[in-house]
Structures are given as C-alpha cells and as structure tokens.
C-alpha cells in the first residue's frame, strides 16, 4: 500500500519508537496501516498505553513516525496543517477570546474577509446550539458547551479530516450522549472524514462506521470492525440502538477483548 496514489487518509506502515532522554526507548506503535476513504468515521479503541494518542499525533503532524508515513489525498503529512483539524479533550480553547473569536480563529489567521467569517460563525453557532452565547467568554460555559465551541472552531476552518482526541472524555454521562448525537449530525451534514479516539466502548461502537481495537506493547491494530450503528444513528433513536441485541453483543465482545489485554499487562505485576 502506497498512500501516494490514494484519495483519502492513508497511514502507511507506521512505527514509532520513542527514545527516552535518560536512555532506553519505548516502542509505541508497530506497523500500523489504515486506509480511510473520504467521509468515513473511524473510531479507535484500546487499553491505555496502546498508542492511540501517538497515532493521532502522527496523523495530525505533531510527531514524525520512526518508520512509515501518513498521506492525505496523496500528499505526505510533514507537519500540522489546516487541512487536518483537531478537537482536544478539554482546555484547548483560548480563554482570552470569547466564543465567536475562538470559532473564527482559523479564518482570521488565514486572513479571510470579516463579513464572510462572521456569517460562517453565526451559522456554526446555530448548528452547535450556542446561538445566544457568541459574546460570552468561553470560561463561563459548561464543559459540554466548551466542547461544542471546540467542534465549531474546528469546522469553521473547513478541514478535510477532523481528528478527535477523547473530545467527550471529560463530560458527564448525559451530556456525553447528547454530544454523541451532535457529532453524528455534524458528520452527516459536513461529510468530513473523522478519526475519533475514545476510551468508551459504547461511544466507539455508536459513532464509528469503522472501528479499530488496538493492542499495547507495542501498539498495533488488533482487530477491525465495520459497523452499522452510526448509519442507523442518523435516523433511529440512540437509546434504542444502544439497547439493541447486536449492539450489546458487540459491546461485550470488545469489552472482554480489552479486559484480556489489560490482564495480560497486569499479569506481570502483583495485582
């Protein structure tokens, strides 16, 4: 697989070995390959330490892989770029700017005309349900609202790919479910390619059109699924889907898979 001829996002045989400053090294990723068509939503699951975030940082261009490369639409990724937007867990908003200025950050940096940007921000504020909050400082918003701003800020830049690093991880369970609906809605309306990293099996199943489960030491792809739930989530009620038989079956299967991995890791220690 060479990514140079592909449309979409290609992770081509990426390995990552971190050399520690004090000597020694950590083998974080081993021969990870992915091929995402434009508009696909991939969720990435795995026990802690399996290299999920490392993989995302490589795709984002914050880290250079030891071996292999990442390609987007045939172009090799060499650094961060506006074509690959990021949504972080929390605390990545600019607290010195109000909601509008946060959302318009990308267009303003690119020097887009103010009128056009303003209209775009208005539109996005409505989409994420923050129509009345544009002039509020971001630190006055709740955690869920802040993540809506983070989503809107990313969308305002019209990236090809949206990379999400545990975007809903710090939210309470109810807000989290609501935000999952929003992510699905935005995915459908914008048709963006999305890579979503999460600790929650349920979230990965519900949102991921495709799902990979990673295994640790070294981080690698353990199993890959194609799932119907995200497609169904666009029309059916989320509660119904999450309570359905095949959803629960998949959830238990993946949970026990991750449990086994965790136990393998802990096996060496006295626990």
């Amino acid at each position, binding site marked *: 697989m060479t990514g140079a001829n592909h449309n979409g996002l290609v992770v081509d045989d990426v390995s990552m070995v971190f050399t520690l400053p004090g000597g020694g090294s950590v083998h974080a990723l081993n021969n990870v390959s992915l091929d995402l068509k434009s508009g696909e939503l991939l969720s990435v699951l795995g026990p802690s330490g399996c290299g999920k975030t490392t993989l995302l940082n490589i795709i*984002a261009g*914050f880290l250079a892989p030891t071996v292999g490369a990442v390609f987007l639409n045939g172009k090799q990724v060499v*650094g*961060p*770029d*506006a074509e*690959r*937007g*990021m949504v*972080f*867990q929390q*605390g*990545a908003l*600019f*607290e*010195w700017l109000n909601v509008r200025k946060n959302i318009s*950050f*990308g267009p303003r*940096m*690119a020097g887009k005309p103010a009128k056009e940007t303003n209209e775009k921000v208005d539109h996005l504020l409505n989409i994420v349900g923050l129509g009345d909050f544009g002039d509020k*400082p971001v*630190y006055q918003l709740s955690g869920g609202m802040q993540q809506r701003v983070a989503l809107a*800020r*990313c969308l305002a*830049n019209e*990236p090809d790919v949206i*990379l999400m690093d545990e975007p809903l991880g710090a939210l309470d369970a109810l807000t989290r479910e609501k935000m999952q609906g929003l992510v699905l809605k935005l995915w459908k309306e914008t048709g963006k390619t999305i890579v979503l990293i999460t600790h929650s099996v349920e979230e990965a199943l519900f949102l991921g059109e495709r799902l990979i489960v990673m295994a640790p030491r070294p981080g690698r792809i353990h199993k890959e699924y194609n799932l119907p739930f995200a497609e169904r989530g666009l029309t059916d009620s989320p509660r119904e889907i999450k309570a359905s038989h095949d959803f629960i079956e998949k959830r238990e299967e993946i949970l026990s898979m991750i449990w086994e991995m965790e136990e393998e890791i802990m096996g060496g220690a006295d626990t």
Partner: protein
Amino acid sequence: MTDQPNDPNIKLVAAPQETPSALMMWLGMADNSFTRQKTVKFGDPSAVNSGRLWSFVTVIALLLLWWVSTSQGWVKPIYWPSFEAVGKRITKLLDQGFRNTALWEHVFISVYRVLSGVFFGALVGIPLGFAMGLSSTARGLFDPIVEFMRPIPPLALIPLIILWLGIDETAKITLLFLAALFIMIIAARSGVSGVKISKVHAAYSLGASKFQVLKNVILPNALPEIFTGIRTAMGVCWGTVVAAELVAAEKGVGSMIMIAKNFLQTDTVVIGIIIIGLIGYAIEMIMRLLERWLIPWRGKG
C-alpha cells in the same frame, strides 16, 4: 427574620433558628448562614470569618496607646511624636512643603521613579523573557546573568551605581530598572513556558503561522504571569526607591524622612512612614483592579 424557605410546599420540621443581624455578621461576631450549617469548623479555612470587631479593637488600642503614652509623657517627643505635633506638622507640610519642596512633589518624584524603573524594566525584560522561553540560544546566553543577578538585593547595587552614575536621577532610575528587570524576565519566561501544548497544537492545526502562534496564543497566555511580574516589580521598586532615597537624594519621601531625622523632626519621620505605607498599599490595590479589568480570564484556562 428567619432562614425559612419561602416555598409554601416545604415545611420545616424543626423550628428555624434566629438569624443573627447583618451588623453582627459584618463585625465577624456571627458566622454567615452557610457556615452556621457546618458542624466541622476547626480546620476549615472558609469557616474563619473576618473577625472585623477585633480589627477595630486593635486599631483603637494602638491609637489609644499612642495618645496616652505621649500625653502622659511616657515617651519623649524625640522618640515618638504626640497627636498634636503630627497634626500641626501635617498642616505645615501641606502648607509650606518640606525643604522648599511641596509634600505632593516629594511623593510624586518617588512614584515617578518607581513607574519609570518598572516601565523600562518591562520594556527590556518582557522581550528577553520571551526569547529565553522560546529559544535555546537565548536561554543559554542570558541564563547565567539572570540566575546570578536574581538573588542579589537591588540595594547591594547602590554603591556601584553611585560610582558609575553618581547620585542624579539617571542613577536612581537605573537602579530601579535593574530591580524590575530580572523580575520581569523571570515572569515573562515562566509565562511563556506555562503554555499548554494543546493550545499551541490547536493553533497550528487551525493554520496559524509561527508568528501568529506567538502573537495570538503565547503572548495572551503569558499575560497573567507578566502582570503578576509587574505587580511584584512595583512592590519591590517601591521598597527600593525609599531605601535609595535614604542613601542619597534631595527629593522624595525617603529623603524627606532621612533629612527630617537629621533635624530630629520625629513627627515628619512618622508622617513619611505613614505616607510610604499608604502609597505602597494604593499601588497594590490599583494593580489588583487593573488585573481584574485587563485579564478577566486569569486562572480560568
């Protein structure tokens, strides 16, 4: 007045306790309604109230001690002046000034020196601190100087400054500049180093250039620390200017009390000390107000 909820659907089983008056709470003689509900108070810092009544007691006792000890002749006027002497002296100082210079001018010149020192210290220190926080070369170049100068009290530099620059205005402002400079360098550097990497990453992913990241992320992110630096520098410079004026100066509050001492004008000395305290307090309060106004996002990142 009771704390009973106004909702008619809620019935209190126990009889509500009598609420202490607002005056009692203001004086710190009674806890506020929230603290009154706590059973664990010792060790809970928020359960300690202002104790304002005792502050009044302290102030009144001190003034009383002053009045009695001077009027009864327990202390000689040369060690501590009487109320009347201080009152008379204030009128005279306001009226005629001190040594042909108006009282406000003595205060003004000291404040002016502090503001100049802090201004130039910030002007040079902030860019240097930024450079040290952002570039290994700059950090390497300036680290030995900053780390060496940091623990030296500015007052220890007075003899050298006098040797180099004499005792004129330039010498004083240079001393205050040095006092502010290292505080500002360290504040700016730690403001830059304190940026959360996810904010920097977010900005790059939104298409920002290096310069845009510096201007739109690193700089605003460092502002709270820079402001703390300015506040600290103001305080240190105020202390330093008074001490510098004690050593050698024609004008300024510090020189005023030093010269007054030579003429055994204890009342002027005491008035000077009170002015120094009030101005220092005012500077701190103004800086806090400015901070709340200019950097409302402080600590909310």
